[in-house]
């Protein structure tokens, strides 16, 4: 796991767990801001694709998956300890998937019932957009949560030369 990275020409040390946790919090604030901004721009908008590109850039920075130069090493390969930690992180992340997924499903189910839509026709667009925004948030968490758990739980690292 990397202990430093360069941001706008400045080398930032993240060997200590405390710093890594702050970084994880900052990244997730960025994700939350993107989803909220997207939700605020209601209706069909190409802003969704901008969010997608920003999300892809942040995910690449976070690493994991197939990315080779992120903060977390790629998920393929590694020794047995790393593999076990990766599996364990996914197990923990899986427990949070329902928290991401159920709000979106409830919003969809609420909108799918025509009786609700007859009673509150003004909320039709709101619930449609809400369900997609919640699912987008779920999607972002899905892709980044295991890496965040790995960064969050790893103890202080020795600095790389």
């Amino acid at each position, binding site marked *: 796991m990397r202990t430093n990275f360069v941001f706008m020409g400045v080398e930032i040390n993240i060997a200590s767990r405390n710093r890594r946790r702050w970084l994880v919090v900052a990244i997730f604030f960025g994700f939350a801001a993107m989803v909220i901004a997207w939700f605020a721009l209601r209706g069909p908008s190409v802003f969704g694709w901008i969010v997608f590109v920003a999300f892809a850039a942040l995910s690449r920075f976070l690493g994991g998956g197939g990315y080779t130069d992120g903060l977390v090493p790629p998920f393929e390969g590694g020794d047995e300890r790393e593999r076990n930690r990766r*599996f364990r992180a*996914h197990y923990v992340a*899986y427990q949070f998937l329902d928290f991401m997924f159920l709000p979106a499903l409830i919003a*969809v189910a609420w909108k799918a019932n025509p009786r609700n839509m007859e009673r509150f026709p003004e909320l039709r667009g709101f619930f449609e957009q809400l369900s997609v925004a919640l699912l987008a948030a779920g999607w972002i968490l899905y892709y980044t949560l295991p890496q965040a758990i790995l960064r969050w739980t790893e103890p202080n690292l020795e600095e790389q030369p």
Partner: protein
Amino acid sequence: MRAELVLMGKRVDMALRTRRRALVVLIYAAIAAVMISMWFVDQWRATGTYIFWAAMLACRLFLGGYYSAGLVKPFTGKGPRQYDAPPPLLLLKLRLYQPVLDDPDRRFRNDERELKQRDRSHYQAYQAVGMGVVIAWFAAYMGMLKPAWLTWIPMTPFQLFYALMLVTLMLFLTLPQCILLWTEPDLEPEG
């Protein structure tokens, strides 16, 4: 993993992998049948939740994992909550078979190998469930941005979105246990 299932007081030997695989296929076929039949009832408007309950029932009766009953031991390693008060007489009468073990926790506790298998199966299930989330989101977003692209589907874009989310939820609840049941080799029958 347990090698037998207790259904209505009857012991069913599930030590063979072929039997467990047949059970997995049956469960998914039954849930698919429920989903298709509910579409013809009211396009899942009010009956969509039945798919969720069907998946929960399959977990509770057959799969386990998130429940203390079923073939897969509880993922948390904890059994059901024990009460000091004796169980009601009716429950005692209904309980036709209750295995008595020297260590009652053994039925629920996972050893290190089982914990590794649990983590690995969740890792694999995570990929499939995530794919479902991505496809559902993409369908919803396309339905909003370019609804004309989805006119060839015999349902509205929103119904497609709802269906994909229901399938993803069902997979989320059942897939880790089914991966374990599918991949675990033949077990030794319980004594």
